């Protein structure tokens, strides 16, 4: 069998099979025959087992180096006169390794959640979104063109926002889901703009090979890619949404904000690193943002009082360090860092609900409280500086207040003003309603 054909078939299967599985659950529900939980459980386990097997075979093929090229053209997805969008995947080592990681972690989360969310009203919703998320992440992992990466990127953002608001009957998670989605949308503008400009200036949107670009467009595209990565990576100044996103169920927090989604930003930078080779300004921007984010998240994370938020900030710190590594050109280290961090953070977040139980067990086994081993460097600082650092960290560096009160409150004030003007204009033209009008207008309710 042609090795490229095998790669394409396995890649296509790994990317789309979770969506097919999600589609089967949705279809059963739409036709009024919702599956019993046990069936969903079997579907999830089978899906991720098969996808993981496909990913392992893919990894084996890529490591063996039998294929002629890493890039596999699936099809010309859209061919218009003088324009085409190709469905192209790239199976290089970081790509297939990321696919394997996605399949493995999604499988673990799937298996964990079948018990964790047993009899929960949102049981089906969770698994449908988890499988769609897997497809989105797979597309980001091995999509060769920015078009495919963008499609996956959007799916990841949407599923993330919907899972943060998983507990739909509580207002706080719903509000936080929207907040996260707002950040994603702002950063998505940059990614889509980069894709279009790349098409325009280079005619190709391959991430694997950076085309020769003039300095100005090259810098613009590189900076847009950097900005695009900030939202999902929860980098400064967009860190505020991530701890709030922990309002979602623990398994989704683990897969999104500990393991995979948080690394989507750095991974995008990693994949598009050829575009930064000749752009020192863009690299410097990555490093600066990484350093600021790491310091911010470290300080703020230290003063948190709940385990999930602390872990959230710890994840942001590590994602920022990965950004610094990419900015410095240490891409292999960054790749390894992503894998190590994703696995560790998943384990920590999945254990988070039992942390008190673990603590008591540890205490019982030791026969008393464990010794304090922490020797934090900030304890060497003068008391006043420590107090000041503690205060501003407790307020999360006032970023949310500044963004919320200065930017959004002013914007909302303007929008409400415009809306009031419009309502007055409407009332002036339409005039007051008469009882006869009411009869005609209220055809409903």
């Amino acid at each position: 069998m042609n090795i490229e054909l095998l790669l394409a078939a396995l890649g296509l299967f790994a990317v789309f099979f979770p969506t097919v599985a999600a589609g089967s659950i949705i279809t059963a529900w739409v036709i009024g025959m919702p599956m019993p939980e046990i069936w969903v459980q079997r579907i999830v386990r089978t899906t991720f087992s098969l996808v993981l097997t496909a990913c392992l075979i893919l990894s084996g093929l890529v490591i063996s180096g039998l294929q002629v090229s890493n890039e596999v053209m699936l099809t010309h997805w859209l061919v218009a006169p003088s324009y085409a969008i190709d469905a192209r995947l790239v199976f290089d080592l970081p790509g297939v390794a990321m696919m394997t990681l996605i399949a493995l972690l999604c499988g673990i989360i799937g298996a964990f959640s079948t018990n964790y969310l047993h009899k929960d009203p949102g049981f089906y919703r969770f698994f449908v979104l988890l499988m769609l998320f897997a497809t989105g992440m797979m597309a980001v992992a091995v999509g060769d063109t920015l078009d495919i990466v963008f499609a996956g990127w959007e799916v990841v953002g949407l599923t993330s926002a919907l899972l943060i608001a998983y507990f739909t009957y509580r207002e706080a998670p719903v509000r936080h889901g929207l907040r996260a989605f707002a950040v994603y949308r702002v950063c998505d503008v940059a990614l889509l703009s980069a894709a279009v400009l790349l098409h325009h200036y280079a005619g190709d949107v391959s991430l694997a090979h950076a085309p020769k670009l003039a300095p100005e467009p090259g810098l613009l595209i590189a900076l847009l890619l950097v900005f695009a990565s900030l939202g999902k990576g929860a980098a400064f100044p967009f860190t505020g949404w991530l701890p709030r996103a922990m309002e979602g169920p623990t398994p989704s927090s683990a897969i999104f904000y500990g393991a995979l989604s948080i690394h989507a930003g750095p991974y995008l930078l990693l994949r598009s690193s050829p575009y930064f080779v000749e752009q020192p300004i863009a690299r410097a921007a990555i490093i600066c943002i990484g350093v600021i984010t790491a310091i911010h998240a470290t300080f703020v994370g230290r003063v948190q009082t709940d385990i999930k938020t602390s872990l959230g900030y710890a994840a942001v710190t590590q994602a920022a360090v990965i950004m610094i590594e990419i900015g410095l050109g240490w891409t292999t280290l960054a790749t390894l860092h992503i894998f190590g961090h994703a696995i560790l953070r998943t384990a920590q977040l999945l254990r988070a609900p039992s942390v008190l139980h673990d603590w008591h067990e540890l205490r019982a086994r030791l026969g008393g409280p464990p010794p304090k081993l922490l020797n934090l460097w900030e304890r060497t600082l003068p008391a006043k500086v420590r107090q000041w650092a503690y205060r501003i960290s407790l307020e999360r560096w006032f970023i949310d207040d500044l963004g919320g009160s200065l930017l959004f409150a002013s914007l909302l004030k303007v929008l409400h003003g415009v809306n009031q003007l419009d309502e007055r204009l409407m009332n002036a033209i339409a005039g007051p309603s008469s009882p006869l009008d009411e009869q005609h207008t209220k055809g409903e309710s």
Partner: protein
Amino acid sequence: MSVAVDFDLVLITIFGLLLMALTTLVLKIRGRYIGTFAGSFTLLMGVATLFLHPEVIAKSPLYLDAASLPRMAVAGIMLFCVFMVLPRRQETARTSAALIALTAIHIALAAAPDGKLASILWVLGAVMTALVLPRGPARRLAIPYLAFSAITGVVGLAISGPWQSVLILLSVISRLGIFPFHTWVVGAYSLAPLGVSVALVAPMAAISLVAHNPLELDHQFGLVVAMVLAGGSLLYAALAVVQKNFTRGLGFLTVSIETSVLLGVLEGDDIGHLGGLIMWGMTGLALLGLGLVSAGLVSRRGEFRIDDYSGLLDRAPVFATLFLLFGLAAVGAPGTADYVSEDLVLHGDMAHHPALLILFISSVSAQGYAVLHIFYRLFFGPPKPFFFRDALRRERFALVGLAWMLIFAGLLPQFLLNGWLRAGDRPDMPHVRQHGDEEPRAPGLNHGH
């Protein structure tokens, strides 16, 4: 089948629809029966016409191209879905007849071979739109805008020179309710029965006037106009988020999306224009789906407040799923037909102007946020203690079918694109500017007939 019969398929559809409208009015037939029949008939004729050879189509007395030919099929789907989903109280004989007649006028307007016929149809469309709206504040609000649109349109089509394009543009944007003429559309959504307003607005029939050829605007002036329109679209998306009432929020979201579609259709570049035409059809269908789901919700419990949470998810999960699907499809989410058309639009002329490009993408992005904001406010939050019935069987049939169509076209977009390319493949087609070519296309509505 002889060629002579093939020529007249469009005319047969137009006159057939007018006859059905008249029959409905005279015999007081129930709207759902005649409307769904009219929709199926138009869809069938539309598909049949699309499959005919372009050379045969080119000999028709009407001007049939990529802008006008696929409109028949789109109009058929719209008519069918509207009458399947429209609440019973709203499908009166008068409203049903007017909606069917308006569909005939829209099909004819899209294929009008000259300015005179286009003027007549333009005025007729404005009159019919006013008549479909119920007597009261919604109609009073719409009349000045529709009158302005009719006058500027007729004058614009009659004169030539630089003012022609300006007047036609003013006419189109005031009919569509685009910046700064949004008040009547938003008012229609909040003051008139929602299902009827959606049926009037979603087809975006006014785009017909600028769909065949781009406007002849000075390059700099055109760019400024495009920036203003994109800025207006962004503003409307933001205004949708700050509304208290659901129907007003939906109205602002709709005009924001309409602006994006118009910007796509107005592109001078071959690819961008083609994307705009597909966007016109597909976004129209998605907006219709979104509007009809909303009409279904409002018809059950009246107006909803979106400055609070309504918690409808548990009671109406099918409506919730469909609302999210159509909302995302209308703003070009991946996997839906609009994603493809938006992609084509972005790779047209817009790519030459990074500032316009970023503003346009920002407005689309804000629309996406507005969709999710309204969705969360309607369906999430603590459940309220009231009875609420989820989608009925007939509603599910029409809306789920429409949703599947949008997804299918999004996953396999080449079918869609081939349909539009085939429709535009005219031997006498005016020179269409290729990607990067600086030559402008033929102006106005003079197609050589």
